[in-house]
C-alpha cells in the first residue's frame, strides 16, 4: 500500500512541477531577419551593417541628397567628391567624424558649412529636411562609421533609490 501511495504522490508532484519548466529556443536567428535594412561596409562589402528603422530612413535620405559628395561611388556612377576642394569627408570616415558630436553634425547639416566656419560648398539643409530626417542621416552615418562609432559615455547614476 505504502509504496503505491508514494508513487502516486511523486507522480502528482512531478506532473505539477513539470508545468513550471520553460522551453528555451536554441536556434540562433539570422541577424538579417531582425534588421529593417542593411548597408555593406564601404571598405569591405562582405561585412554588413544591420540598420534599424531610423538608420534605414537615414540611408534613404543619404542616398538621395548626400551621396553625391560624401561617397566615392554614387548610384549614377562617378562621385563629385574628388571635384571639390576641400574634399568633403566620406560619410563612413570614423576617424574624422567620430569625434564630432551629434549637435555639431546637426548644425552643419542644418545651417551649412559656412555657419560653422567650414567650406560654403556644404549647403544648408534645414529648410529641405526636417530635424527628424537630419537626425536619421546622422544615425546612419554613425551606423556605418569605420572605425566604429562609440556613443559618448553616459553620465553615471546621479541618484539611486538604493
Amino acid at each position, binding site marked *: 500500500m505504502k509504496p503505491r*501511495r508514494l508513487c502516486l504522490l511523486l507522480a502528482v508532484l512531478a506532473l505539477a512541477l513539470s508545468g513550471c519548466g520553460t522551453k528555451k529556443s536554441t536556434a540562433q536567428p539570422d541577424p538579417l531577419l531582425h534588421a529593417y535594412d542593411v548597408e555593406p561596409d564601404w571598405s569591405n562589402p562582405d561585412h554588413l551593417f544591420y540598420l534599424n528603422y531610423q538608420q534605414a530612413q537615414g540611408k534613404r535620405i543619404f542616398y538621395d541628397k548626400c551621396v553625391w*559628395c560624401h561617397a566615392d561611388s554614387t548610384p549614377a556612377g562617378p562621385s563629385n567628391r574628388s571635384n571639390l576642394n576641400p574634399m568633403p569627408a566620406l560619410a563612413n570616415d570614423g576617424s574624422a567624424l567620430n569625434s564630432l558630436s551629434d549637435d555639431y553634425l546637426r548644425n552643419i547639416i542644418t545651417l551649412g558649412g559656412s555657419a560653422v566656419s567650414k567650406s560654403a560648398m556644404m549647403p544648408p539643409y534645414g529648410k529641405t529636411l526636417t530635424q527628424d530626417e537630419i537626425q536619421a542621416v546622422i544615425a546612419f552615418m554613425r551606423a556605418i562609421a569605420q572605425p566604429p562609432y562609440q556613443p559618448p559615455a553616459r553620465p553615471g547614476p546621479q541618484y539611486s533609490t538604493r
Partner: protein
Amino acid sequence: MPAEEMGKASRKLRLAFAISSVVFVAVLAISPLKDYFAPWRQYKRAYARFANTRPDTKRLLADYHSGIDQIWIPELKVVDRCTTCHQGITQPSLMDASVPQPFRAHPSIPHHALDWGCVVCHRGQGLATEVREAHETTLGWEQPLLPTHFIQASCGVCHQSDIPETPQLNRGRQLLVDLNCFRCHRMNVSERIYVPPPDLSNIGHKASREWIYKWLKEPRTILDSDGNVVTNGYANEPRMPQFRLNDAELRDLSAFLSTRQNEPLGSHQIDPRIVAAWQKKPDVADQGETRFRQMFCTTCHAVAVTRAGQTQLIGGNIGPELTKIGSKVNEDWLIAWLRNPQSYFGYAQMPRYQWSDEDLYKVSRYIMTRLTDSDLLSDVPKMDPPTPAEIQAGKQLFVGKGCANCHGIQGIKAPKEFGPDLSAVGSKTVSELMFGDAKIPHTLVDYLRSKIENPTSVNTTAAMPQYHLKKEDVSALITALLSMTRRPDAPAFAKLVVRATPSKFQPAGQFGELYDRYKCYLCHQFNGYGGTLAPDLSFEGSRAQKAWVVSFLKNPQTLRPASTFRMPQFNFTDAEASTITDYLEMVMQSPQVNPNPDNSSKTSPELVALGKQLYEVKYQCQSCHTIGATGGYVGPNLSNLGSWMRPAWIAAWLKNPQALVPGTIEPRREFTDQEIQALSAFLMTLKQTPTSAKAGSAAGGSR
C-alpha cells in the same frame, strides 16, 4: 476492536492524514509559486532592477506596477500585453543598442505604439503572456511575429499607395507587376508603368521554330560565373520565366508558335536604291552601330559588353535586352517592327520612330550581323517542319501551361483564376499551407521564400514557372505578398486604409497622338503619371523657353557624361516638335510661376556682378553646377541657362525648389529677394551660341 489496535489504526490514519496535508499544502503552493516565478514577472522585476542602474530611474519607474500591462484600443480591437515585458518601449532614454532587450525603446516611427498597439505591425499574439506564445507559432495561436526584415509589409496593409519610407515594399509591388504575377494570381496591384508581354498572334513572322524551342527551354542567354548579369544595380532578367518543359513539349509548343502568322507582315520594304547603294559597303554595320548609339536605343535596351573577362549589360531595362537579337529575328520582321511596332501588335510599347530608309537599313544591318551569337541555337535538335499533330498538341500546352495568361494570341482566351488567389496570402495560417517534403521551418515566410525560389520545392506538381531572382528581390516580393492581408474586422480599420490613387494622364488631340506614338510616359512624369527615368514634365511649360524645347526635341543632348540614359533621337518633324512645344507651353504650367513674366524685372551690370559674386563666393553654387568647363556635376550644367529657362521659373525655383519639383535634391536656401534678383540676372546672362550649344539639357533639368 481492541483499544491498542484502535490506537495503532488511528496512528496510521494520522500519518496518512499528515502526509496528505503536506501534499495538499504543496499542491496549493504550486499555483502561487508558478505565478511568482512566471517569466513575465521575472522580466518585470528585472526591469525594476535595470531602471535602478539608470540616471532617470524615477521617470523609468513612473508607471511601474507589478501586474500585467496592456495597451487597449477598443476601436481597433487591440489588446496587446507586449508592454508587460517590453516595458521601456516609450522611454526615449532607452533607445540605444546598449540597453538589453526586452527593455529597449521603440525606434521613433511616425506611428506611436500607444496609439496603435504592437500586433497591428509586428503580428504575433497580443494577448499571450508567455514568451513563446507571444512570438512564435504554437498549436493554438498561429500568427508568429513578423521578422523585422519584412515589417514594411505591415505598412502596406493600410498604405496601399507607395510611400518613400518603405523601399522594399515598393520594390516588391513593382515586381509583382513587372514579373506578371498578377496575371495568374488574383491580387490587388495599383496601376504602374509596365511593359506587357508581347502578343504572339504573329510570332511566326518574327522567330524560327529553333529559336522558340531554345527560348522556351532557357530564356536566359547571358550569364556571368554567378549566373547573374547586372546592369546599374538592376538585374536585367528576362521577364519570361523558365517552364519545366521536356523535349516533346518543347517541340509541340515551338511547332504551334512558329506557325502563328495570322496577319501578313506590315510594310517592310526599304527603297531598293538605298539597299543597292549600301549593300556592298563594308562599313554599313559600323555605321549602323554608330546610329544605334546616337539614337540612344540603349536608354531602353541593354546590350552586353565583355570587358576584361567580365560581362556587363550596358543600357536600360524598359525594353528587352538585345545582345543576341540578330540570331532571333527575321530581318523582314525587324524592319517592319522598327517602322511601326504597333502594326505587329497594337499595345506594343516601343515608340514609332521617324526613320529615313538609309538609317533603317544601316541599323537593321548592324542588328542582324553584330548582335548575334552563332552558337545560340547549337544545342537545339534538328526538327522537321511542324506536323498538324504537333501544332494541335502545342495549342493544348499553350492553354494548359497558362501561356495565354500573359501573352495575347488570336483564338485563345486567357483562363480565369489560373493560379491560387493571393489577395489575402499575408493572413494565411501555417495549417493552410502545404509544405510537402520541403525541409524548411513551417512558417509563412519560409513557405513563400521556398515557393518563389523554387516552385516545386513545396509542391512537385506546381504549375508555377521558375524565376531567377536576386535575394533582395525575393525579400521584396515576400514583403509585398505579406502586405496583402484580410482586413482586421474592426470597422475603424476601413477608415485607416490609405487607398492607392490611380492617376492616368491621357491627353487628347494632336499632342495625344504624339504622346501615344512616342510613349513619352514611359520615361517622363505628367501630373503624377509616368516613368521616373527622365525629368518630370508637369511644369515644363513654366520652366523652359519655347525655342529651347524645339531645339532640344530636334537634337536631345545631355550634360551628364556619367549617365548612360539619354532621350532617344526620335527624329521629330518640325510640325511634331511645334505641336509638342505648344502643348507643353499651354498646359504643363505651374500655378507657382508667373506666366506673364514681369517686364519690369530689372537687370543691370551691377546686379549681374552681384549675382556672379553670390554664385561664386557666398553660396559657392559651383560645387554642384558647371558653367563652361568648371564646376561640379551634381546639378545640371548651367552654361546655357539663359537660353533654356524662363526667368520667372528661376526666381520661383530659387525661392523654393521643392514647391516646383517635390523631392528635388537642390536644397532650399534662405535667399533675400534682392539676392534672388541678382542671381537670376546673372544666370540669365549664361548663353551659348546655338552652333556650340551642346550643353542644353533636360536630363538634368529636375534634379
